């Protein structure tokens, strides 16, 4: 049966009435925001339900919005049902002081490295991840570089003066 935004939203609202925090349309994707504590049940439902059957995790990434206090770091999931050719986007927000969320690795093996990358860049700790450590940056790095408060350039370099580069 063909999946549309309304059908998926209705199924989610029926199953998790208090986990949904909002939904909207962004260009051609439907966004649905969930509470971070319920994300494991939601993802399991989306993967295993025979009608919804989202077998393909397209992408998992993080976003940092320091203006939203209490919910600064967002984890964004892009899901795709290959048979019905339907895609949509899920988001869950966690506070910067305690960024913890359940891992998606029990459902999609692809989430393994994608969650390591999100941990490496934003510091989000995924509970239940088999091997959560830094993947792209050097292992002994102490900060999480993609957060907005850290600069792009290397702060310890001596040869490039900021005033010449407009910084």
């Amino acid at each position: 049966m063909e999946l549309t935004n309304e059908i998926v939203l209705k199924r989610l609202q029926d199953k998790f009435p208090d986990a949904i925090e909002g939904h909207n349309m962004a260009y051609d994707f439907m966004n649905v925001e969930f509470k971070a504590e319920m994300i494991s049940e939601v993802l399991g439902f989306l993967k295993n339900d025979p009608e919804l059957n989202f077998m393909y995790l397209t992408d998992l990434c993080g976003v940092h919005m320091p203006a939203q206090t209490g919910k600064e770091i967002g984890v964004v999931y892009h899901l795709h049902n290959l048979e019905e050719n339907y895609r949509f986007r899920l988001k869950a927000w966690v506070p910067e002081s305690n960024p913890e969320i359940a891992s998606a690795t029990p459902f999609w093996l692809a989430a393994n490295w994608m969650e390591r990358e999100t941990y490496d860049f934003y510091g989000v700790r995924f509970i239940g991840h088999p091997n959560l450590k830094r993947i792209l940056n050097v292992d002994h790095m102490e900060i999480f570089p993609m957060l907005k408060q850290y600069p792009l350039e290397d702060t310890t370099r001596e040869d490039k003066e900021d005033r010449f580069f407009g910084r």
Partner: protein
Amino acid sequence: MKEQSIFGEDHIVPEEKNYNTLNLGPTHPSTHGVFQNILQMDGEIIMSSEATIGYIHRAFEKIAERRPLYQITPLTDRLNYCSAPINNIGFHMTVEKLINVEIPKKVDYMRVIVMELARIADHLVCNTVLGVDSGALTGFTYMFQERERIYDMYEQICGARLTTNIGRIGGFERDFTPKFREQLEDFLKGFPKRFEEFDSLLTRNRIFMDRVIGVGPISAEKAVNYSFAGPNLRAAGVDYDVRVMNPYCSYQDFDFMIPLGTNGDTYDRFMVRQFEIRESLKIIKAAYDNIPEGNHYADCPEFYLPKKEEVYTSMEALIWHFKIIMGEIDLPAGEVYHAVEGANGELGYYLISDGGRQPYRLHFRRPCFIYYQAYPEMIKGQMLSDAVMTLSSLNVIAGELDA
């Protein structure tokens, strides 16, 4: 307790086995890229492995938050640098989706020609280097000549060979020059014959087939669970191609087949890429024969750099030129995800804009990064030389792996 040994019943095998640790380190003896695998080996057979990446992490996503749009296009070049035009055009299409501008059909067809040329170039690198790793150097030397011809064509359009920075948001800088048309026609006439020569070297070659059949297999369910994409997924038997599933850039006008494999092993990946090169040639020919009339750019003066003659004569064009170059154009707020079929699979761009002049967040969905996670599983139980063949058939490009 006596273990069953391949040497026969009488061979005594020690009770405790010590596995060797071998470092298939970042400096590879074949110019593939920098990634490290630490292998636990039992003699020649690989028991387990652990992959380490990040040796060329250049922080693209952080750089993109600090640059105006036209300065992000050179960054996207360096993702999958063997097929840079696809990355550039994918990024431009994402921005066009964000600003909601309609692209003329002629631009679509021109983009299709350039993207399919890039796909051919990338698949040639992968397949010839697969030959080199198994000892067959001739294919490399001959097919790199074809890549030089493709580079000549890129130079006609944008001036650069490898990291092309091709096109503009909304189209191209100029229409195809007569020299480009001549080069493209020569290419379409001469390439199929030379490609079939290369094909005859490896495809039915007994040595090559014995070397690659059954090496590094992956099943279709596992491949979907690992979010494989592109030729690697199609070799496992799943027909997912972004050009067909979510057509962009007028791909629905073209008639082409999607080759599928059965076992997902190295030979299937090689054959899928060979057939995709032939299909790309068909698409280029169809697009070139039917290019419609029209403008080579869309009507979006805030993002498309005006022609130099107009900049020197008209006031409005001068102002737009200044604003675009100095990066003072505000993007509309919103978030958009757009995917194109890169040479390695679904290359996605997730762009969040807060109405400022630079993207708030730009995330690249890099296919290499996602399917390389399955590599330790694919080489388990195989021999060391098979691990090298599997690695080169996966077409892992370091720039796309680390970003």
